[in-house]
């Protein structure tokens, strides 16, 4: 820390005046606390062989439906648990609970994202068994969650073909941090104006390293590629 004292202007009258101010150099990351908690969560999870996958999307992308199918289809392979981030209602958590999977709900109130402290509290409450595949259903928006490291192993962004193919260009911050982009509801492709190839190009434009998989959570098209990705060595 560097502290410099700014001298007050010279004067010869004795009345009271505001004292000199001091400029204090801080040079610290705003999210330093969040990132420190996230690092702690990451190392605790890794130690127990727990893999956390942070799922982010705008509302209506079919994220909860995808999660329901994934939990049912992976049943028995390994323990699965869900941290459900929601601004208002416990509805999504109830849908997940009906699959028989362990779930903890985090109400973010007016907050538009989960942060590492919420993640740590949720992990403590859930206490997942070793080897668990832990899904984090982040709050439904494509802006705020991009900034906050939760200590997850991978970030997945889900969009659907009923949204615009230019979504990666409209929300570049979110797509820039994604390890995987899932394009959901491909069963609706014949009925909507969605250019899948253009969408893939737009993802590469903001994030050359991201993988893109197209699938349908309701009908089950190409979900195996998603399950393969989840069980790939890079994720385990």
């Amino acid at each position: 820390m560097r502290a410099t004292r700014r001298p007050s202007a010279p004067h010869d009258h004795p009345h009271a005046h505001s004292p000199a101010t001091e400029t204090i150099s801080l040079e610290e990351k705003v999210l330093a606390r969040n990132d420190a908690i996230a690092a702690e969560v990451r190392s605790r999870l890794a130690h127990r062989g727990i893999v956390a996958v942070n799922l982010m999307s705008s509302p209506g992308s079919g994220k909860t439906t995808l999660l329901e199918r994934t939990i049912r289809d992976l049943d028995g392979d390994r323990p699965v648990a869900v941290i459900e981030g929601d601004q208002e209602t416990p509805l999504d958590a109830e849908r997940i609970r009906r699959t028989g999977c362990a779930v903890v709900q985090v109400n973010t109130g007016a907050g538009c994202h989960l942060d590492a402290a919420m993640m740590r509290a949720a992990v403590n409450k859930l206490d997942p068994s070793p080897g668990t595949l832990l899904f984090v259903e982040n709050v439904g928006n494509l802006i705020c969650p991009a900034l906050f490291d939760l200590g997850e192993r991978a970030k997945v962004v889900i969009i659907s073909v009923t949204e615009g193919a230019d979504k990666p260009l409209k929300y570049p911050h979110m797509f820039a941090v994604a390890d995987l982009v899932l394009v959901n509801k491909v069963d609706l492709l014949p009925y909507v104006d969605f250019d899948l190839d253009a969408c893939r190009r737009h993802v590469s434009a903001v994030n050359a390293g991201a993988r893109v998989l197209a699938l349908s959570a309701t009908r089950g098209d190409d979900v195996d590629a998603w399950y393969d990705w989840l069980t790939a060595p890079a994720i385990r």
Partner: protein
Amino acid sequence: MHELSIAESVVAAVCERAGDRRVHSVRMRIGAFTAVVPDAMQFCFGLAVEGTVADGARLDIEHRPGAVHCRACGADTDLADMLLLCPCGSADVAVTAGRELQIVSMEVG
């Protein structure tokens, strides 16, 4: 609005360091690739300081443009938006600037 939680983090950090001294101004550095909107940041900072030793403090923002280093041709390029592409056409680039989100300094007294 994530700017509010960012503003709250900033205010908590500066108030902790200020102790019982008044905070007159805070300087932040915000990169172009951070998804933090300066106007929203100003607004939320004004809300977050209420009732603290930084009440009424001014927020100064240093804006940092984004930049990438190209692994294909070696060029360093400033970018106005987040399309991470070198002028040579390669997308094999590393972000070298624009992700800054820092509290630079504060004025107390």
